[in-house]
């Protein structure tokens, strides 16, 4: 079962940019950016997240969701709480950019959801100084 990586950001540009960056390192993984509101403002769109996650589940994939800031966490928790099959979906506790790269690279190796989540969450401990 392959893992789809969904990137939820307040900004469409951020979601798309991080998806591009991560996808460039692992072109075989499915990366879905979900950014901004339906009417083009900054914010998180619960319906778009639900659609992105649902499309993965419908395709028989597992889904790892990475989020950027504050209310993205609340939006993701709210949407995921409504899903019937939560075992196949995980909200990843990782920094957005580093976690996305780690998740996508790990997913491209054919690893399952638990491994993708574990590798992405290791990105939390990357020191930069």
């Amino acid at each position, binding site marked *: 079962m392959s893992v789809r990586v969904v990137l939820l950001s307040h900004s469409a540009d951020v979601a798309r940019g991080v998806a591009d960056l991560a996808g460039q390192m692992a072109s075989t993984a499915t990366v879905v950016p979900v950014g901004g509101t339906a009417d083009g403002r900054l*914010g*998180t769109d619960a319906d778009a997240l639900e659609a992105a996650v649902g499309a993965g589940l419908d395709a028989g994939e597992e889904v790892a969701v990475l989020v950027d800031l*504050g209310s993205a966490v*609340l939006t993701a928790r*709210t949407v995921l709480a409504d899903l019937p099959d939560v075992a196949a979906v995980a909200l990843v506790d990782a920094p957005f950019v580093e976690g996305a790269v780690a998740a996508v690279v790990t997913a491209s190796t054919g690893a399952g959801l638990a491994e993708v989540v574990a590798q992405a969450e290791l990105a939390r401990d990357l020191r930069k100084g």
Partner: protein
Amino acid sequence: MGRVSPALTAAGVRDWLQRFATAVDTHASDLTDLDRPIGDSDHGVNLQRGMHAVLAALDAAEPATPGAALVKAGSTLVSTVGGASGPLLGTLLRRTGKALGDAESADGPAFAAALRAGLDAVVALGGAHVGDATLVDALAPAVEALEAGGSAQEAADAAARGAASTDELVARKGRASYLGERGIGQRDPGAASIALLIAALTEDAS
């Protein structure tokens, strides 16, 4: 002033949320001012947009029960607001509505119990407790007042006092927490909004 009892109906929920939407319209710039030092100055306008969508959704769906009306309203807020108030306020209304189930109407104790379920869901979602300078500081005392058999007015007074208490608190959740003690003297915008929501209960009993 009206009590929540004896019977909050689907039409009563619509009237309640209409009064709340009107209050949000009236206070949008105040709410946005509260959001300015600590947020992105969009709380008022976001909530305005969300509540206009809620009223449109209720008019289109015409839910038959107060529970269904609240679930519809909450789901609409989650999908239209875009900021933290969407999932938080949306979860409050949705879980309150789900707790009411299929009942045609809700009396005072049933409404108080349902609002408690909504409060619990908000706490589970956001992780905030009384004293963290969030909407929970306004909502929890209002729920307690209703559970004690208090009138809607007493609940509104409790919510207003709770919102005012956030002025002197150091925020421990959300973006305001980045400010630390520099946030003292600032009312939490979410708590201010909840005070308006509970105050909007007061003019309707049926």
